[in-house]
């Protein structure tokens, strides 16, 4: 199988710090792969290794079928790779158009209209002649994305693509990335710590924590993996908690003015809980079976990992 990205037991240490530890990734062509982790989990270091900016301490990296490592650029797959690493950077004294024109020429794109096209695509046309040093954070992010997409790459590697964008911008970029992958066959590898972003866009998700890939799963499986819980609101949460823990519902915990019960029996038969609470004189004002949200799932997973370590 010819993967877009393939890493075999890649590790990177900076002195005694293990930034990335034995990560093996397989990203299929045409897939949107989200690389999920907290700050400092090793996402950016991994991305820099994929792009040949950092050499792995151990292991191999293959991008679009070519080994990355010693060749630097020029001889790599770079004409077919677009990237945005960390915060978008630019030459502040140059205009948006000039910044993109530099990228176009260094990417070896012959078509002089490519710059205008990508500015239209990312709604930057009205800023074309503005010095990029005067742009807002959101527009700088768009400029960074424009640079990554300018040459219609097969593989797009994006570090936190939603950074700095407003909610409407996030939706717009999400649609753009989805269409690049699903209609134009591009492969997208994106890192994120915004879990709801990943949930809506990715086909597959890798969760990285303290440099290790601790979970890799299809987006639809993620739905199934997230546990169910019963969320209760009542006028007297403490009393309700006492009543439930005195029965067999040991997991009842108060969280943010809600009572959360994760026992299987409670999730399966919420009507029993309602009856108990009514009889105890604290009738529920709200009772719902909910799926654990992504943040909770993620924290559960990373905490488990901490315990395991």
């Amino acid at each position: 199988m010819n993967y877009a990205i393939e890493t075999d037991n890649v590790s990177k240490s900076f002195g005694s710090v293990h930034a990335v530890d034995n990560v093996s990734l397989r990203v299929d062509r045409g897939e949107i792969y989200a690389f999920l982790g907290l700050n400092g989990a090793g996402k950016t270091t991994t991305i820099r290794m994929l792009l040949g900016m950092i050499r792995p301490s151990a292991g191999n990296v293959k991008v679009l079928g070519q080994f990355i490592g010693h060749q630097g650029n020029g001889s790599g797959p770079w004409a077919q790779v677009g990237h945005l690493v960390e915060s978008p950077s630019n030459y502040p004294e140059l205009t948006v158009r000039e910044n993109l024109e530099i990228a176009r020429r260094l990417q070896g794109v012959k078509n002089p209209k490519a710059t205008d096209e990508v500015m239209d695509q990312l709604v930057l046309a009205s800023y074309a002649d503005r010095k990029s040093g005067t742009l807002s954070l959101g527009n700088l992010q768009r400029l960074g994305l424009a640079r990554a997409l300018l040459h219609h790459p097969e593989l797009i590697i994006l570090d936190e693509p939603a950074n700095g964008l407003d909610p409407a911008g996030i939706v717009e970029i999400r649609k753009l990335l989805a269409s690049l992958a699903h209609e134009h066959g591009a492969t997208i590898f994106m890192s994120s710590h915004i879990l709801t972003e990943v949930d809506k866009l990715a086909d597959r998700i890798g969760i990285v924590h303290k440099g290790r890939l601790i979970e890799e799963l299809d987006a639809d499986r993620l739905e199934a993996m997230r546990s169910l819980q019963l969320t209760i609101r009542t006028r007297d949460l403490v009393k309700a908690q006492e009543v439930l823990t005195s029965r067999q519902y040991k997991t009842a915990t108060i969280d943010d003015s809600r009572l959360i019960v994760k026992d299987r029996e409670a999730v399966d038969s919420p009507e029993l809980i309602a009856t108990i609470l009514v009889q105890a004189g604290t009738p529920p004002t709200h009772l719902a079976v909910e799926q654990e949200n992504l943040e909770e799932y993620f924290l559960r997973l990373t905490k488990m990992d901490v315990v395991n370590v």
Partner: protein
Amino acid sequence: MNKFASALWAETLKARRSKTPLLTAIGFTLAPLMAGLFMLIMKDPERARDMGLLSTKAQLAMTTAEWPTFLGMLTQAVAIAGMILFSIVTSWVFGREFSDRTAKDLLALPTSRETIVTAKLVVVCAWGFATTIFIFALGLLIGDLVDIPGWTVALATQTFSDVLVTAGMLFLLMTPVAFIASLGRGYLPPLGWAVLTIFFSQIIAALGWGDWFPWSVPALFSGVVGPRSAQLGIHSYVAVFLTGFAGLAATYVYWRTADQTK
């Protein structure tokens, strides 16, 4: 060649849009202006004293206000001020990519890193020579305005070629500055390096070993401490050339192999 032309276009655009070339050129014009002022004072010291340009106690090292003295001063100014000018330019061309965090966008491209480094050095070279030639031309104009005797075309031609050779040596000494700007990821380390080399070039030249110390060679060549032939030998020029080559190799190797984490 096509990729090199693209990289050169990009580097030229960055330099053109920056205020640094203009500011360095303006700073450098002080050299011929000061030389011209000296000539004015030398022509008529009494009048200069009356105008307050000169302290009554001043002892002037130079004795005559004429073209050979003036052009000699100009060459020496290029050697010493040029070291500062070239270092600022090199620090800017390389260091800005790290200060503005744009270096990461130059690493994973179909245009090789060596091509980009080469284009940068070409811009440093062109920028340095253009400013040097501008200063020389300005010097001729000022000399003409001050109206000093002793002009010959042969003298002017000889001085011009000396100025160009001095600038060429300065350029060779800039490759270590480029390396330090890359290694230190910004402007300050290469500027610190430049100050240090200028400082040591004075001390080592004063100790009499300047012909072996590459950073002293341009100043000795320009005649700062007397006639050139006395001290410099082929080994001096070889030392300058080897320093340039070592700096170039180190810069290429650094851009190719070092971990780029910023």
